[in-house]
């Protein structure tokens, strides 16, 4: 019973509406294949046949040498499948990795020879679902059609239950965002705060950026913020005594962006190019926004980067924003 309760969610999680702590709403692509579709998007993986006695060795090799490196996550699939040949001998089929990680048959052969200390000849490519299924029924259906899936509950529900925000920190940032926005009350603009995560869901503020007039795309606060982060990193590298650069300081890799308004298509895609970790915005931009209103950039299959999108829905805060300035005409923020 305890287990069942967990899937319903903790007190701060509204699973049905994707709202956390009553004020942070998850924004997702309505048709995001990864969560909702009944048709599986497929990916090619290397499969092999092994003896039951080799299972442990192969499982360890996959755990130690594949899982952290293969960019295609296969954790939603069972790794081994038990089968019998005509004479009743049991053997196993195993998924090794995606064909994106090991691209040629000989690489797979070498990998198996190295770790199983014997040559495996039955190696072939199969198609399997790239993402977990959204319901138990779809999961069963795909298990039948492609390869056994492991059902661990709705993946997005699991995700929502796993996310933690430090609400004190979040509220402080939002207050600062609004105070900053108050400074520019005569023309359409936005404010961006950029945060680098430290620990306990808290972070260090890297930049507080007030945009200029949004009619000029160069003046959008997100573009200015991205520019600021890159210039600081240039300076840091220039003055750093050691040649070695911190590999995590790459573009805006995994940084958190807080924005007063839903960013325009240009700025939303700039966040994708900059590989941010997550974005939280306050006021929606129904005629121009690229996260919630159109295209769902940041949660779109096919682009090379995804990030979490959250909308701060505390009505008091949104009212304050709109009282400070509300553009009479549609605008790109």
């Amino acid at each position, binding site marked *: 019973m305890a287990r069942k309760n967990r899937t319903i969610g903790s007190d701060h999680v509204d699973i049905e509406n994707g709202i956390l702590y009553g004020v942070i709403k998850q924004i997702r692509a309505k048709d995001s294949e990864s969560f909702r579709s009944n048709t599986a998007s497929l990916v090619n993986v290397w499969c092999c046949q092994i003896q039951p006695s080799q299972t442990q060795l192969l499982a360890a090799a996959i755990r130690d040498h594949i899982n952290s490196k293969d960019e295609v996550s296969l954790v939603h699939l069972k790794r081994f499948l038990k089968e019998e040949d005509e004479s009743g001998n049991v053997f196993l089929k195993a998924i090794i990795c995606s064909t994106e990680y090991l691209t040629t048959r000989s690489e797979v052969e070498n990998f198996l020879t190295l770790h199983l200390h014997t040559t495996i000849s039955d190696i072939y490519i199969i198609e399997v679902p790239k993402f977990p299924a959204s319901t138990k029924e779809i999961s069963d259906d795909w298990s039948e059609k492609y390869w056994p899936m492991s059902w661990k509950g709705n993946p997005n529900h699991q995700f929502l239950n796993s996310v933690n925000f430090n609400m004190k920190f979040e509220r402080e940032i939002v207050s600062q965002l609004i105070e900053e926005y108050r400074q520019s009350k005569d023309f359409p603009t936005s404010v961006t705060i950029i945060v680098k995560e430290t620990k306990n869901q808290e972070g260090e503020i890297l930049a507080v950026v007030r945009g200029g007039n949004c009619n000029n795309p160069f003046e959008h606060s997100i573009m200015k913020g991205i520019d600021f982060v890159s210039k600081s990193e240039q300076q840091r590298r220039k003055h750093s005594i050691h040649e070695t650069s911190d590999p995590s300081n790459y573009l805006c890799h995994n940084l958190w962006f807080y924005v007063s308004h839903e960013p325009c298509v240009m700025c939303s895609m700039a966040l994708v*190019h900059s590989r941010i970790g997550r974005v939280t915005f306050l006021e929606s931009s129904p005629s121009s926004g690229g996260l919630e209103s159109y295209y769902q950039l940041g949660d779109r299959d096919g682009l090379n980067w995804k990030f979490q999108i959250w909308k701060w829905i505390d009505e008091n805060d949104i009212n304050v924003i709109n009282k400070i300035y509300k553009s009479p005409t549609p605008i790109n923020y």
Partner: protein
Amino acid sequence: MMDLTTSFEDMAISLFIGYKALLISETPVACILKDKKSNKIISIGYNYTNSSLNGTQHAEFIAVKRLYEHSKDIDFSNIIMYVTVEPCIMCASFLRQLGIGEVIYGCSNDRFGGNGTVLSVHKDTFLVDKPYKSIGGIARTEAIQLLRNFYIQENESAPVPKIKKNKDIENKLYPPNLFNLTKEEFVDFYGEQRLDILENKEQEITPIPHKAYRLKDLISLKNLQEVPFLEDELGLIDEEQLNEFYDLFYDINDDSTIDFTKAIRKFNNKKRHLTPE
């Protein structure tokens, strides 16, 4: 007959700027901005994401920023952009917000294209700004080949560099030639005579319909030396460098197919110049 020679000449200049960007380890995507009235090149741009550590510093931004630094009051509807690769979703929105007059591009951008390939940011009617005209397919194979010369290298600035396995770019085929245009839009720019290319998707646009061409005949050293900002920012150009550039590309035959019999070279990152096959 619709003679597109000048469009090809303009694109050849953009391609060469892209090549100069490749020489400083940038993705070889580049553009020029031309003033429609004076027909002069008023700015150039090239990808600058690696040097700047800023993933938004695409060619389109660099070219426009240069103009902005001069004057904040520019009428972009009189400006035409020749860019080697279809603008990405970000740049498509940027250009639309500026009110750009027209965009001519080389090859499609299969992963991020915002002018019809992934999204149609240039013309989707629900967005606020006025749509703009966008035409692809001028010197398409050359734009692709230039990119391939970049992608065979390893991206050393990425957090975990991927080891590139497929370096055999001489024998790679080109994807189908898709234009993201309606038949009317195609005829309006390319003319009836080229309709077969829209339909069969296997041939290339040429400056003169059904007549062979090569980049070598489109631009000269003198043309390039006259391009503003080019030598100042990306270094001097000489005949040897220009010939190395020409040697990267296949020519196009009279029947609009690619001449795969030509021996091309590929760019060698380590030596910073070309190696024979």
